[in-house]
């Protein structure tokens, strides 16, 4: 969209608009800088205090470890490269579980919304499965899918599936009836109504589900690995805990936190791209 000044007055208005916009942006940048500075201070204080209290012997490093010990552990793990295979396994299990669970969940939500009969029949079964604490199924998954990656993927799928199914359904259900009516009056067939109105309308809700789902996928995989696995960061945590190495447990948790942040960021970015049409509207 281009706006050109037609008169001197228009020109002044546009100038003022540009200036206030620049002002606003500068103010926002300054604020962001302050927020980050404050965050760095809080983190520094926390880490410093932890390091110091252990140094003076106020708390026992056997239980709480120490920032320097955790850093040393991580540096060592990275230098000899022993952590990477575990990172790879955990990441792979999480991504596969997330993708399968999300794909299946969205598809199930769509099918259930399109065919009320299917929805009615499946309701009690899905409700029972959904209220069941899925982690309780972990031992069964290990029996069915083995100690390898399959059982972790299955656990992740069992969590992500329901999150996405319910969010997709909520998204489709919450659609403005006015839009459906207008499009129908414009000659949309059921099929077109679905692809051009219902699905795009459900995208924000689906992304809400994806953001939640990616975190739960990682959770499920780590729990599965902690219960029984050959490889993976969850298995490392269980291993270090069994040998009472607090810095190993905490260091691995730190790595998991970074992975979780990365996954979350990927979903948020995808959301920003796909939901560009929203702009910064409320």
């Amino acid at each position: 969209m281009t706006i050109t000044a037609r008169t001197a007055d228009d020109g002044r208005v546009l100038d003022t608009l540009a200036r206030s916009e620049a002002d606003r942006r500068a103010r926002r940048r300054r604020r962001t800088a302050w927020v980050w500075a404050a965050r760095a201070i809080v983190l520094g204080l926390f880490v410093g205090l932890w390091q110091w209290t252990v140094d003076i012997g106020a708390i026992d490093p056997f239980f709480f470890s120490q920032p320097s010990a955790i850093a040393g552990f991580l540096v060592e793990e990275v230098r000899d490269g022993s952590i990477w295979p575990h990172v790879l396994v955990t990441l792979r299990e999480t991504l596969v579980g997330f993708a399968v669970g999300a794909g299946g969940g969205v598809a199930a939500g769509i099918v259930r919304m399109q065919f009320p009969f299917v929805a009615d029949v499946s309701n009690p079964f899905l409700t029972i499965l959904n209220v069941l604490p899925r982690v309780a199924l972990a031992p069964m998954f290990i029996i069915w899918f083995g100690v390898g990656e399959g059982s972790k993927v299955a656990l992740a799928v069992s969590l992500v599936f329901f999150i996405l199914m319910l969010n997709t359904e909520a998204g489709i259900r919450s659609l403005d009836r006015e839009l459906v009516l207008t499009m129908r009056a414009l000659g949309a067939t059921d099929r077109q109504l679905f692809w051009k109105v219902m699905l795009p309308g459900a995208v924000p809700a689906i992304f809400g589900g994806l953001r939640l789902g990616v975190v739960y996928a990682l959770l499920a995989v780590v729990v599965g690995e902690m219960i029984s696995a050959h490889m993976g960061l969850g298995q490392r945590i269980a291993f270090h805990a069994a040998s009472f190495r607090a810095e190993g447990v905490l260091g691995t948790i730190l790595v998991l936190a970074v992975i979780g942040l990365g996954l979350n960021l990927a979903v948020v970015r995808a959301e920003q791209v796909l939901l560009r049409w929203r702009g910064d509207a409320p």
Partner: protein
Amino acid sequence: MDVILSEAAPRTDLDLAIRVERVSHAFQTPAGTPVLALDDVSFDVPRGQFLALVGASGCGKTTILNMAAGLVQPVAGTVVVNGARVTRPSRRTGYMFARDGLLPWRSARRNIEVGLELRGVPVSERRATGSRLLDLVGLKAFGSSYPWQLSQGMRQRVALARTLAIDPDTLLMDEPFAALDAQTKLMLQTEFLRIWERDRKTVLFVTHDLAEAVALADRVIVLTCRPGRIQADIAIDLPRPRDPERIRFDHHYLRLSERVWQALKAGEAAS
């Protein structure tokens, strides 16, 4: 298209755009007793006529439009549009509501083009029509704006362009300008009349605004309330082209408005 509206000329079905024949309709209420919304309503709309429907709130105006649009089936009677009994939405009919119903994830241009997209019109043709209509409703510079970036009047213009884009034979309009402020309303009425007077499509126009009905239409039908019946059928023989802004001071316009208003009063008193 020129249609001669003389009572003497025998009307063939070809001259008829819409025929509403002995239509009655009832809705089930939550209380259980059905409410009679329309009672034995009949009227014909010749091709190219601009017909306004007025009447108190809840007297069945929207229901009539929904029937003509094929969204609602009458309990009794028939609605015929372009020679065929309406049983489902037709792609030759455009329907516009008071609320714009724009898809929030589509730009103004893509909203205007959506009806063509549904009909499988090729992209290049769609783009051409989209540009023409953006221009027609005065939104040339806003084609890539999303609905939330447009004012209400602009959104309603996009909705109008979307309805016109499919080039319908028949236009059904349910209080299309009701959500606008007086000034924007007048501007859009003028604009719409200018567009309409070029190709004179059949229009069935529901409004609460008597001034709007008389200023725009060739004919005004006044409905009574509960049950909806036809109270009066008034020909608006004002010359065209009309200017909705200036016609308000015309003597004949004032007389016709008075008649419509009297009929509305009489209808309310009767029910």
